[in-house]
């Protein structure tokens, strides 16, 4: 295992669309209207339909598992949603290693909107195969 603190994960850039939000609503079974009904979303003070937090969590999970491949296992991850994101704008998922201890590594992970705001922030723990 050659992981080093400070190592950055390759970026994962997602291009969510309203269609994808509907697709995700169906696949997850979350039919809260703020994810597909513009009028409803505005009526509760949102700029329009927004990405599901759990869709952004899925993107960040993929960031880690794409980088990890078959070299190890994702043991845990945690995310906080700090801002809303709207479809039609690229969503950039990033991460870096913060510490390494034996076979385990801790990562900082986050998702950025096109203005560079970290609208999702979190951490992940991975265990590398011996």
């Amino acid at each position, binding site marked *: 295992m050659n992981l080093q603190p400070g190592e950055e994960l390759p970026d994962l850039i*997602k291009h969510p669309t309203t269609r994808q939000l509907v697709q995700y609503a169906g696949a*997850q079974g979350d039919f809260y209207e703020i994810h597909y009904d513009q009028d409803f979303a505005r009526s*509760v003070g949102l700029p329009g339909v927004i990405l599901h937090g759990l*869709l952004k969590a*899925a993107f960040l999970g*993929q960031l880690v598992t794409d980088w990890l491949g*078959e070299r190890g296992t994702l043991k845990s*991850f945690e995310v*906080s949603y700090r801002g809303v994101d709207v479809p039609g704008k690229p969503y950039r998922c990033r991460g870096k290693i913060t510490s390494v201890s034996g076979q385990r590594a801790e990562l900082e992970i986050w998702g950025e909107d096109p203005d560079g705001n970290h609208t999702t922030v979190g951490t992940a723990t991975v265990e590398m195969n011996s």
Partner: protein
Amino acid sequence: MTETPSVVDRLRAHVGTPGPPSSAVVEAGHLKRFTEAIGDSYPRWLTEAPPTFLVALAPVSAHLPEAEEYGKGWLNGGNRFEYMEPVKVGDTITAIGKVVDVYEKAGASGSLLFIIFETEYFNGHGRMVARLRGTAIRR
């Protein structure tokens, strides 16, 4: 808002009490629809659940009608996922969820209600495969 404290108190009464277990089989077709929806084509996910799939099998948050008396909408504040064993196509997964905390916080545009849910997922052998936590916010 004189009714606000009572909503919080009524929700607090749920803390620590597990909800009814719900069971579901991990189906290849559901996995495929889920991975297509999130746009993750990693081949292992044809037969194994990707990191967030369990929320599609059994939601991490329960429906609490009294929470909807507070504020006008829901927001997801955050999620935590812990994994003990992989979940594969054909597994029967049983989820047991509970409310672990309820509290109010002052926000920039009024008060917010936080409800923390925790759900444990077990496989057919009775072993816990994952534990998920979700922070639901009413605003």
